[in-house]
């Protein structure tokens, strides 16, 4: 490790911008960005599945609130949601004295909350569309087997809906990664925050942002590859015969 570090140091010796220190900022930024995006996607996904089922419910008192939630969070910019959650919560009287403040004091949890609620709204809509597109024949077959509503949902509707939602959900993941670039406005040092810091330090916008763009590009490629792999495995049965 030490040998690696010293080699890296030698490599960067005559580089005034990308020193070990600034690379450290980028490294920390990468960790923050990945944490933030990964956690918000996982929690958002867990929230979205029941919400998507509820969204398709015939009971209006279930489907209407979910519709409103999706409408509000898809209809307003993520940046505004982030501002509202970070700066807005403090106007709740006496929140500083509750246990919630421990979470809301630092910028990470408000940002995570904003991102999670946003991605959950989009994912709900993606899944709802996929559930709705379940072929009639599959449902009729399940009924003919005497499956209960619950069993049919678990064995037939959801698995095939997830498969159908996969390409659209892959898009949502990439959008989320790119949307996370706004986290730095609430002082979170994510990748973009690190790039901004380096830019301001060295008055080198091109170098700082080009470097961070390359990191985002690598992350996006990794996500693309993952979804390509999943689609190949899970959607194999949908390919044209002999294709």
């Amino acid at each position, binding site marked *: 490790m030490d040998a690696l570090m010293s080699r890296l140091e030698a490599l960067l010796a005559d580089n005034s911008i990308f020193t070990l220190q600034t690379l450290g900022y980028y490294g920390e930024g990468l960790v923050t960005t990945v944490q933030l995006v990964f956690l918000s996607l996982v929690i958002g996904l867990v929230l979205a599945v029941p919400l998507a089922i509820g969204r398709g419910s015939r009971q209006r008192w279930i489907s209407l609130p979910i519709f409103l939630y999706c409408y509000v969070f898809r209809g307003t910019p993520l940046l505004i949601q982030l501002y509202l959650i970070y*700066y807005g919560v*403090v106007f709740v009287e006496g929140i500083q004295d509750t246990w919630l403040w421990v979470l809301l*004091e630092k910028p990470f949890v408000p940002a995570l909350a904003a991102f999670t609620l946003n991605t959950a709204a989009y994912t709900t809509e993606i899944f709802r569309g996929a559930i709705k597109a379940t072929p009639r024949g599959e449902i009729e077959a399940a009924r003919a087997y005497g499956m209960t509503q619950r069993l049919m949902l678990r064995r037939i509707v959801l698995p095939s809906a997830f498969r159908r939602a996969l390409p659209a959900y892959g898009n949502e993941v990439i959008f989320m990664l790119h949307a996370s670039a706004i986290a730095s*406005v609430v*002082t979170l040092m994510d990748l973009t925050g690190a790039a901004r*810091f380096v*830019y*301001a*330090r060295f008055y080198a916008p091109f170098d700082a942002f080009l470097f961070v763009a390359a990191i985002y590009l690598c992350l996006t490629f990794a996500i693309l590859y993952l979804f390509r792999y999943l689609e190949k495995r899970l959607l194999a049965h949908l390919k044209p015969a002999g294709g």
Partner: protein
Amino acid sequence: MYRPKLLLAAALCTGLATSSVQAEAPLRLATDVPYQPFEYSLPDGTLAGFDIELGNAVCAYLERECEWVVQSWDGLIPGLMARKYDAIMSAMTISEVRRRQVLFSDPYFRMPSVWVAHQDSDIDITDPASLEGKVVGVQTATLQDNYVTDLHGDTVEVRRYASWADVVADMRTQRLDLAFMEYPTAQSFVDIDEQESDFQRLGELVREPARYFDQGVGVAFRKRDRELARDFNEAFTALKEDGTYDAIARKYFDTPAP
């Protein structure tokens, strides 16, 4: 591609040729009003302010006639390039980006910075141990950011905001223990040093070390006018020595200028 350079060279030559004549012509100084207390117009239309009086004192020292030109802020540097005037004296902060276009004199005014804390804060700014783990807010990419990051980066947590308004907002929410900001900003945003302020100043105004606070306000010249810049620097030194500078500064600023 080469033509503009040729033109530039031609302009340079004529500039050099006329420079001997220019010694007789009045020196034209540009400023953007109003920006109190640096420059503003009086009811009778004459200009007043720290920059104006200091500029006039410099001209008196150099024994040259001076003329003030009023020009809006965004046109100041282009106007200088277009030779509409010879220097800008308009509370212009020296920055790397501007330095690429213009030549700056030595800084003739420096804004001190100040530590802002809550009224009930028990932090002792001179004691590094009491800073341990505190959260400090700054505007990103300012000299205050550089100062805190470099000097206290390993003891405090630095939070970098897009604007001073955001820093002050999070001071009020108690997310921040401290803010480090320019003194005039602190005066206008949180009424620092006033009776009714919610915040208190910690320690003295910060003006050191020079590598952070050296980039004060400077006079801007065209890059080729090195001699003129040298004259101004010489005048500033002389005016500081004979007390004229202090007298003018005392007149326009509540706190003694550095």
